[in-house]
């Protein structure tokens, strides 16, 4: 899965303003049927998006926000606190990305999910709950006409009424998202340092790394 760099994302924001939306809800385990990363967008929020039935032909639940016309192609998601809590499944980030999301705005995130977002081209923006609720209300009132701006260079969300809300993101993570960098490659550049560190640690804590006396 190649990752698109992010700079500015402009558009509608789909409001899913519930607290504690977990990664089981984002992508139920039974929806992850292959030993791979692709194609999970069709299965995003499956329990909420679809009625029960065979995967290929199941009907949509028309009331769910991502099934409503203005939001079907949304690239920004609004959610309540602790979004992405629970299971570490990276499929949650893959599914959101594959569906088309590039930004999630919430008062807080599950930590593992947040790390998975950064590694997969999805920008997690933390804003105060009152601001996120406000933007959600603008969306509800705007009938699919109003848009917001998320500017990653400036770390600024501009809401539908033109008010700017700054957010923070460590510069290194910002760079990873802006340039679509891969953290494994970044770490591999330091492999010499890491090996030297390992050897020094093994010297001090030989029981963790050394060969056991019984050879096991």
């Amino acid at each position, binding site marked *: 899965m190649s990752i698109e760099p992010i700079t500015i994302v402009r558009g509608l924001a789909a409001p899913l303003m519930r607290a504690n939306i977990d990664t089981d*809800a984002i992508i139920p385990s039974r929806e992850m049927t292959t030993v791979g990363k692709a194609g999970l967008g069709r299965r995003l929020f499956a329990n909420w998006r679809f009625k029960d039935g065979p995967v290929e032909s199941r009907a949509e639940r028309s009331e769910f926000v991502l099934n409503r016309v203005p939001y079907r192609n949304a690239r920004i998601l609004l959610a309540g606190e602790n979004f992405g809590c629970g299971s570490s499944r990276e499929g949650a980030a893959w599914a959101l990305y594959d569906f088309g999301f590039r930004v999630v705005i919430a008062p807080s995130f599950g930590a593992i999910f947040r790390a998975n977002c950064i590694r997969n081209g999805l920008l997690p923006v933390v804003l105060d709950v009152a601001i996120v609720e406000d933007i959600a209300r603008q969306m509800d009132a705007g009938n699919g006409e109003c848009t917001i701006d998320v500017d990653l260079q400036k770390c600024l969300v501009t809401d539908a009424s033109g008010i700017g809300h700054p957010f923070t993101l460590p510069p290194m993570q910002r760079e990873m998202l802006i340039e679509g960098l891969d953290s494994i490659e970044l770490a591999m550049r330091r492999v010499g340092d890491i090996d030297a560190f390992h050897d020094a640690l093994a010297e001090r804590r030989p029981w963790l790394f050394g060969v056991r006396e019984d050879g096991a």
Partner: protein
Amino acid sequence: MPRTLIDKLWDEHLVADLGDGINLLHIDRVFLHERSGAVALRTLKTSGIAVRRPQLAFATIDHIVDTDPGRGDATKFKGGDKFIRAMRDGAREAAITFFDINDPRQGITHVIAAEQGIAQPGATIVCGDSHTCTLGGLGALAWGVGSSGIEQALATQTVEECRPRTMRIRCDGRLAEGVFAKDLVLSLIGKYGASGGAGYAIEFFGSAISALPVEARMTLCNMAIEFAAFTGIIAPDVMTIEYLRGRPHAPTGELWDRAVAHWKTLRSDDAAVFDRDVQIDVSTLSPQVTWGTSPQHVVGVEGVVPDPRSATEPPQARAMEGALQYMDLRPGDRLNSIPIDAAFIGSCTNARLSDLREAARVLQGRKVAAGIKALCVPGSTSVKQAAEAEGLDRIFKDAGFEWRESGCSLCFYVGGDSFGGARRVISTTNRNFEGRQGPGVRTHLASPATVAASATLGRIASARELSR
């Protein structure tokens, strides 16, 4: 400067400061399972990247393997065998120590990492699984990462993380009869919310913690993730050292002595300052049970379902309303009058030998109520064998429980095994999320004793009702 245990372990593993609080950390142990580990190994292989130190990586099969007697690679979940084979082949190719399905060392990752002595005090451990924090119960700094985090750990022996703030949860007093580590952690999450630990690594500490057996400490740390914490940890003590002595991967001989001398130093300095301090008197706690779809939706077994109007913020109120609807409950409903359809004893939270013993104590001489589907799934094959050696399997079977092979089983629903038509389940697991245990399945989380008591009465009940 005085430091916390968390900071000491963090600093000891700090390879590089990448700026803005992001640190590159050395990882001492990597654990894989067939769900996230298989993907990670396959991706590395496709990218032509080698596993750097296979002797520090371990793998098993726990998540989607069937738990019926006589199981093999074929799973009730269609296509599950692909994950199992990918894990096995990947582990073999990468020369990673692998505990296969019918290996006596097989079991739920976090249960066997402790049981085999792979997790040790002061070590950093990652696994592609959020409940890796369980191993904090042994004094390890252990946390879950996604599968690309696992790829990085395998390829470089590092991952990068933001340095967490530190929280000390001081627990004093004595747990009352019939109240367990599970009740303690559920009530903590109930009081401070499912995001109450966000951004923190937590050290549990105090006389009530020192009194907890090591297995119960793992139950407590297991649910740190349900509190949104980076991880939980308990400083190692004599009980930890005795727990590890003689375990297959624990050090031996002179190295054991050196390890023990070091482990005894692993504690927060007396003057260390934590970013947040929380205090709990555990003597006032009662058996807990969840009513909703977040672990923070919890009350005492004798309590009632709360009103969403009591929520402070609209998203919390909406979550409560959604939970009431999903759980088919109303504000004011008494928990201990809710009938159940099934009971589940299992998972990395509560399926170690001591958990099975507590449940068996309740079940001894009793029967599961008519029409209730009841399952016991030991946390590891060696837990199962130890339980059988002391006759616990007979107690479970005589009471009407199914006695399964070890694995994650119905802790989560993957599309194969299910509770049949049962809708309402009382469970010793850690997540009561919508659909977690099956489409439409309503989960109530509780301790093994509470689950066993509820199974015999056919409704939610604490074991206290039986002893009255």
